[in-house]
């Protein structure tokens, strides 16, 4: 395994099918309540000015919703936090609309569509919504995007000694892209990581890269979600945090590598 990177999880935000927030997701993942998938409902964003709010698509709302949940649960100051955003596909609806227009004869893209097409759109709107002026990253590693984002955040935290917010999110494409990238629904997760234990810390994570099989979930519906949505590759880690039991979790990373994470619950 590569050099171990250690951080504490202070809070979590989650939004996905039948998983409206972290407490409900934790209950379902720990097996305290049955998991009942329902289409993801992304709430309207009240933290953005009305003009900006009208311009955001569901992917940006998804990313900001989970980020704001994690920050609120920790009582943290979002404006002071460095952030790592990671997504496999970004805003698929927006991409589809642009490609559709460019396939026609007029080729008149709307300016809003164009500036929303950048992969760091969620990061940009996050800054506008929270006033966060610290470093913010925007990563992609296809199906490994969650682990790539978590690894980037852990490295930044260990080197710079600061708390880091990591936000992973993916949403379904419309057709015809849906057929070539069949992501069934939207899922987002945010982890607020700190370099030291805090009174409310949920768990300590120690992570490094290793070749190992990725952990799967017993519940077939949760396993389907894990396998089909890149950001939901986080579910085995979230399950261990929710169950508050020490364990090692292998999360999908690039090619044959896994991010091996030792999870130690905080008392």
């Amino acid at each position, binding site marked *: 395994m590569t050099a171990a990177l250690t951080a504490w999880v202070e809070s979590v935000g989650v939004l996905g099918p039948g998983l409206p927030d972290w407490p409900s997701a934790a209950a379902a993942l720990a097996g305290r309540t049955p998991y009942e998938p329902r289409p993801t409902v992304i709430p309207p964003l009240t933290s953005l000015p009305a003009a900006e709010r009208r311009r955001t698509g569901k992917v940006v709302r998804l990313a900001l919703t989970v980020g704001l949940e994690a920050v609120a649960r920790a009582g943290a100051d979002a404006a002071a936090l460095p952030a790592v955003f990671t997504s496999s596909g970004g805003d698929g609806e927006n991409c589809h609309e642009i490609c559709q227009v460019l396939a026609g004869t007029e080729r008149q893209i709307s300016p809003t569509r164009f500036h929303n097409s950048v992969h760091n759109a969620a990061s940009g709107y996050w*800054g*506008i919504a929270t006033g966060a002026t*610290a470093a913010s*990253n925007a990563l992609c590693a296809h199906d490994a995007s969650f682990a790539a984002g978590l690894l980037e955040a852990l490295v930044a935290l260990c080197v710079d000694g600061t708390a880091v917010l990591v936000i992973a999110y993916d949403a379904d494409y419309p057709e015809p892209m849906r057929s070539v990238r069949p992501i069934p629904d939207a899922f987002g997760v945010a982890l607020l990581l700190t370099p030291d234990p805090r009174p409310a810390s949920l768990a300590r994570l120690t992570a490094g890269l290793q070749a190992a099989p990725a952990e799967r979930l017993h519940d077939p519906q949760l396993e389907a979600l894990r396998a089909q949505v890149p950001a939901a590759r986080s579910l085995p880690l979230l399950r261990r945090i929710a169950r508050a039991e020490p364990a090692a979790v292998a999360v999908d990373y690039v090619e044959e590598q896994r991010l091996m994470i030792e999870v130690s619950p905080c008392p």
Partner: protein
Amino acid sequence: MKPLALTAFTATSCLGRGLDATRAALEEGRTGLARCTFETVILDTHVGEAPGVDAECLPAELQEFECRNNRLARLGLGQDGFDEAVRSLARRVGSQRIGVWLGTSTSGILETELAYRRRDPGSGALPDGFRYRGAHNTFSVAAFVQRALGLEGPAAVISSACSSSAKVFASAQRAIEAGLVDAAVVGGVDSLCLTTLYGFHSLQLVARTPCRPFDAGRDGLSIGEAAAFVLLERPSGQLPKNGVLLLGTGESSDAWHMSAPHPEGRGAAAAMSQALEAARLGSGDIDYINFHGTGTPSNDAAEARAVSAVLGPRVPGSSTKGATGHTLGAAGALEAVICALALRHGVMPGGVNTQTVDPALPVSYLTASRRAPLKAVMSNSFGFGGSNCSLIFATGR
């Protein structure tokens, strides 16, 4: 931060393939921008198209990555012995100990744009053989480069619009400092596509004539394409003569607007100050600055204010985008390589196309190349979403 050595680097753009062509064009003040004849694009503008991209072929075992962006990546990797330098290092330290961090804004989206024209008239389905993972997905270029170089370590794409391939230097530096890897291939690859050409046009940010950064009459940017790569390693013992170091990085967010910079350059100034602090340099230690300098009225005005506030008005600087065009997600890495060339050869490249430097901009803008012994230089990259990154490079002397 702990400095890193640039042990190999290369760049391919409309100025030509590799370092010699790039350096000759820059020192002679030539632009690579030409009237746009790309694909079926009908726009009255100039673009910087890299020569030979369409003639490049991916090897049979990498056909799943076939797209213009990865052809450009392969063309770039093959220049200046870069691919061999990486393979040689991998043999010494192990293929798992070299990470790959690359910037791109649009990856292989051109393939998707073309596929949308060939959708099934009945079902609307994309044509057979459409490659989502290998061409469309933003990660495609890092997956391709990792495979093409035979590397097996960490890999990610950073896609923060026009700061993408500057930020890869910061991510790789942290990963090496944390011990995750011993070395990193960083760089940027972005290729011409309809999304950016028509998109920047919709924002009325594209110039008709070749872009004129910092000119009083500047009226927008010109889009280019490039592949630029750098091999970063911990410096070992004595640096070779003319060796170049990555000395400082700074990253910030504007928290202001999606497609317009903060008017006072607040985030830009923060990134520059951080880079100086990381490099343990003062504002008087920067000998040359390679501006982001897109040629849009708002970028150049905000950047000039930020530079003047952090470094003062007298540091010689230029934007090389008049020569290369704005290569978007590749711009950070391309301009990092241009800074490395400036340090190695002691020549500050003059900004081409600019006739009358805007007197309202408080900077010392170079319109002709100038020979000078350079110790430390700065490169700025700013992107949509208010993403800013400044890098400082220095000679090892």
